[in-house]
């Protein structure tokens, strides 16, 4: 069974981004970039399926500028088999990414698409659901456990207040939540091996997808700052403050 894993290159989670003073966006010059952490979880899950003998091939896809190649290499070093790089500069909205992925799914015919639930830059939480909608495939979002057989993927999902388990007929889309697994680090030999793994390049135009943004971002600005208050000296003082604010 072939598994397709879309990955996104995003600002590293440790970076505190700065908003440009002119309101045109955030400053991404010379900022550390990494694979979206939830996509790392998706790559890891695909590798585990392969190690369990359930997946035969893992194809990773990313849409982005030429540096996105590094993100694909990271996935290949973790254990994916080959990459597809859809070259695009500038931000590409989730709907356009989902359309690109739908085309690639048409070419590659994977039985399963595993993707992170959300990218930590635009915080949209849309791509997996949109892809499933476009393909009219079953979807399971926020997976904390996934088990795959020849024809079905059984997913336990994080929902408000607890967990829900669904069985989806393949092909299907699964989006990953935090507790699904802990992604591995690539070993040095695997990083070397990954350099030889193939990455095919294509473009949105070649796939016939219009990536012109639908939404207009008219301004980007900083949220109002919150300033620190004061330290309290004792638990008794804290208890009194808590009591004042809650009325208990």
């Amino acid at each position, binding site marked *: 069974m072939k598994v397709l894993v879309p990955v996104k290159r995003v600002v590293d*989670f440790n970076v505190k*981004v700065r*908003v440009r003073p002119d309101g045109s966006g*955030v400053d991404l010059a010379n900022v550390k970039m990494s694979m979206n952490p*939830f996509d790392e979880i998706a790559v890891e899950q695909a590798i585990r399926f392969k190690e369990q003998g359930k997946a035969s091939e893992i194809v990773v896809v990313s849409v982005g500028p030429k540096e996105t190649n590094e993100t694909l290499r990271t996935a290949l070093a973790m254990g994916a088999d080959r990459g597809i790089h859809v070259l695009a500069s500038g931000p590409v909205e*989730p*709907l356009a990414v*989902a359309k690109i992925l739908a085309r690639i799914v048409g070419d590659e015919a994977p039985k399963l698409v595993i993707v992170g639930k959300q990218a*930590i*830059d635009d*915080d*949209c*939480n849309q791509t*997996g*659901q*949109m892809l499933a*909608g*476009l393909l009219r*495939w*079953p*979807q399971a*979002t*926020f997976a*904390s456990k996934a088990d795959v057989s020849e024809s079905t993927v059984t997913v336990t999902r*994080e*929902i*408000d207040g*607890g*967990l*829900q*388990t*669904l069985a*989806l*007929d393949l092909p*299907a889309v699964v989006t990953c*939540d*935090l*507790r699904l697994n802990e992604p591995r680090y690539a070993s040095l030999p695997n990083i070397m091996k990954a350099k030889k793994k193939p990455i095919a390049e294509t473009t949105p135009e070649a796939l016939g997808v219009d990536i012109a*943004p*639908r*939404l207009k*971002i*008219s301004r*980007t600005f*900083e*949220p109002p700052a*919150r*300033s*620190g208050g*004061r*330290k*309290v000296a004792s638990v008794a003082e*804290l*208890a009194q*403050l*808590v*009591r004042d*604010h*809650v009325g*208990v």
Partner: protein
Amino acid sequence: MSVLLLAEHDNAKTTDATARALSAALQTGKPVDILVAGENCHPAAEAAAALSGVARVILVEDAAYKHGLAEVLADLIVQLGAQHYQTFVAAGTALGKSVMPRVAALFDVMQVTDVSRVVSPTSFERLIYAGNAIQLVEVPQGKTVLTVRVSSFEPVKVGGSAPIETAAAGPAFPRTRFVGESVQQTGRPELTSARVVVSGGRGMGSADNFDALIKPIADRLGAAIGASRAAVDSGFAPNDLQVGQTGKAVAPELYIAVGISGAIQHLAGMKDSKVIVAINKDEEAPIFQIADYGLVGDLFTVLPDLDRALQQQNRVT
């Protein structure tokens, strides 16, 4: 054209998140219909009809909607909405986040995720980069699909009596099947609507400590319990308690952060709280930079002492 709001309910009543999403929907200035889909959920439809400002309740009763599965709900919304609605809204809960992007894709439009302010019927604010920036987003003509950051809106109060109209079910989707569910009834308020939230972080050290130290304070204050990602990652607390960028956003009257250093991802989920109290043994912890009141100390002694102090104050009154 009007707005269709997807209600979240437990068959008996609609959730607080629905009442907050309704606030956002009403701010577009257009008539708002609420869709209540489920099995044996007429009481929830009545509860929806009682929310102020609702134009109509659309009730769809079918076993297919019993478990809130995204595929059938998205198809139903598209079926109801293709002709009669322009704007589609849901709370940014696990349900809304699953269903609405699918709806948007079926309509071939972009969704605006986690709207924190309705500026006009076609422009909205939302947070990006873990709340480090706010975007003002304008949607083009045509269908508009939104999810709502519920902590940014007050719940609509009861006081309406909208008519309830029934509608036919949409297509089935047999390729997705419900297997089971385990939902914990904690007896505590919902995290996203609680007046007080007590959250624990990595500093709690273990799931046992988390339970033994956080729960008594939460019980005493009638508070919901939250957790940082580090605490969830370490297995101290379940995932649905995670407060932060990729968890829940909360804005209670009082937020007590215990053993939480204050990573930006966590702050994204709680910095709109009215009053923030931080308890941490590291006086350099970033959480103190945004806390109204900070106590530097070892949570393993501070929490039991705080519990006793609150108990004594109760006795005095």
